[in-house]
């Protein structure tokens, strides 16, 4: 059977089968690029930077000599909510997801995808999944390492907290929120990269929106990724001083609503990206 006939047969046997095969291929190609590209080094630095700081803290306070589990639990919550969610994952996703298409445009190789029998929507979703998986692996590993170091230096007490107390629940929640944050910010930045050439300015606008969403009317707050994420964090950050702006949720929703809300928001943004890519033309000269 010739290749042509095979592809025809694959297509007629059901598009889903073909789309899944294509998604898998795109995922393999793009995941390798996302995780191993040299320009991703800074993303690793911001993902594992907190773990380095926590590691130094662990060395300075062996067996919890100068701190308590309760204090460190709060410190980890602050690091996660104020650094990981608002800085690390935000900028990491900005770098990673905007490069999914812009990278191909910059190296003038996007046309190879466009000249393949792949629906543009399948391409966008495949690239998004690769970015989502890549960012989740990178930031999930950073969070996991931070968590391990934070409680590891307490010895048996830390182990008891993790395996016989709320520790594992906290870890699952942190990892879950990390994955959801990558989903939310990833969809935003993928869509932005298809609309604008330089994501810096719109990225700054998104950052302002995410930072100050708490002062917006309740309805508008629901169009913010961080609105859903901070409600899912396992440990609340004390709303003192300026931190209140980042930690207070005026009208909280149930956890399942927050998860569903974030997924709906991300899918809606991704759908816009799919519509956009259908109209995308190859004009490298303009870039």
């Amino acid at each position, binding site marked *: 059977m*010739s*290749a*042509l006939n*095979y*592809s*025809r047969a*694959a*297509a007629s046997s059901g598009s889903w*089968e*073909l789309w899944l*095969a*294509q998604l898998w*291929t*795109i995922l393999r*190609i793009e995941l390798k*690029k996302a995780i191993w*590209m040299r320009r991703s080094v800074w993303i690793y630095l911001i993902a594992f930077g907190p773990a380095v700081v926590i590691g130094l803290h662990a060395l300075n306070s062996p067996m919890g000599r100068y701190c308590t589990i309760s204090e460190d639990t709060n410190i980890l919550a602050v690091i996660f909510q104020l650094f990981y969610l608002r800085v690390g994952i935000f900028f990491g996703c900005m770098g990673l997801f905007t490069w999914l298409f812009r990278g*191909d445009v910059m*190296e*003038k*190789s996007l*046309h*190879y*995808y*466009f*000249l*393949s*029998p*792949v*629906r*543009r929507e399948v391409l966008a979703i495949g690239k998004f999944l690769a970015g989502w998986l890549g960012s989740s692996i990178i930031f999930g590993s950073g969070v996991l390492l931070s968590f391990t170091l934070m409680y590891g230096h307490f010895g048996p007490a830390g182990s008891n907290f993790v395996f016989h107390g709320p520790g594992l629940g906290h870890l699952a929640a942190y990892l879950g929120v990390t994955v959801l944050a990558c989903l939310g910010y990833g969809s935003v930045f993928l869509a932005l990269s298809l609309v604008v050439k330089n994501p810096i300015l719109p990225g700054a606008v998104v950052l302002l929106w995410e930072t100050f969403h708490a002062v917006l009317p309740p309805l508008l707050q629901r169009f913010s990724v961080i609105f859903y994420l901070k409600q899912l964090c396992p440990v609340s950050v004390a709303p003192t001083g300026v931190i209140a702006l980042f930690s207070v949720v005026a009208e909280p929703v149930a956890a399942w609503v927050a998860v569903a809300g974030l997924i709906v928001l991300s899918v809606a943004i991704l759908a816009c990206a799919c519509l956009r890519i*259908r*109209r995308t*033309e*190859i*004009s*490298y000269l303009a870039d």
Partner: protein
Amino acid sequence: MNEQNTILFEDVSKFYGEVLGVNRVNLSLPPGVTSLVGPNGSGKTTLMNLMTGLIKPTQGRISVRGIAPDDPEELFRHVGYCTQFDSFPKGVTGYGFINQFLRLRGLGKTQAHQLTLEALERTGMTGAAHRRVAGYSKGMRQRIRLAQAIAHHPTVLVLDEPLNGLDPMARAESIALFEALGKQGLHVIISSHVLHEVDKISDQVVLMSYGYVIAEGQIQGVRSEVKEHPMQILVRCAEPSLLASRLFSQDHVVEAKLNLDGRGVLVRTRDAEQFYLLLNRIVVEERIDLQAVAPADDDVNSVYQYLIGGGGGGTV
């Protein structure tokens, strides 16, 4: 003509902002080798990008064997496009480059492997298959892109300057490949600056200038339509002076020039058909020993120079 078997452009225009890409193009390209000929900026690449959906027309309709270019899933099962972009995904080897895009078609591992090897062999790239493309010469990069374009056995092959950077041997092999594909009934659309090379294999030509199609069809047909430049016909015979004197008495013969070797006449005539009839009569009446009769300017290069102008020398 059946739309399933042609590439159709109906009143197609493309503007890049205020800059004209192509304007009001109407074409119906049958299977075989079609050459797009024109100077830089004439719209050849725009036309190719339009038919493959890389860019959208500002107006008009395009159909490639009955498929709209905005349906890539269907279109690229049939179409292979070797673009002019000399760029590749980072870090890829020749084999990996072809193979990964075959896998993207939904092909299995074994089948993609076999087709990759076949494409590499057809383009003479087997030896360098596992080297990184970044280390290839320009000619090798050109060939690996050609291999990628033909790997899935397309029925429409679009080639933008496919001979650029190739050494004479590779050029000859590529031309032979295009000719063979054209004879198999494929649509082979080629743009090239090397007119005398595409001239040998083209079944039809499309001449473009400043975004407009100024002539299309079989080259002899296009040539005969260029009335302001009389046809040049070279007649090789034993008595050229006698023939020249007889020819001169006819209105449609505007010039008859004796060859320097004294063995032929170069005739310029406004009516080739009348000329051939007249020639037959003279040869019979005067018993002239006729050795060869051949048009001297019905090639792409001459037609290009008559219609568009340019420096000549076989390249644009």
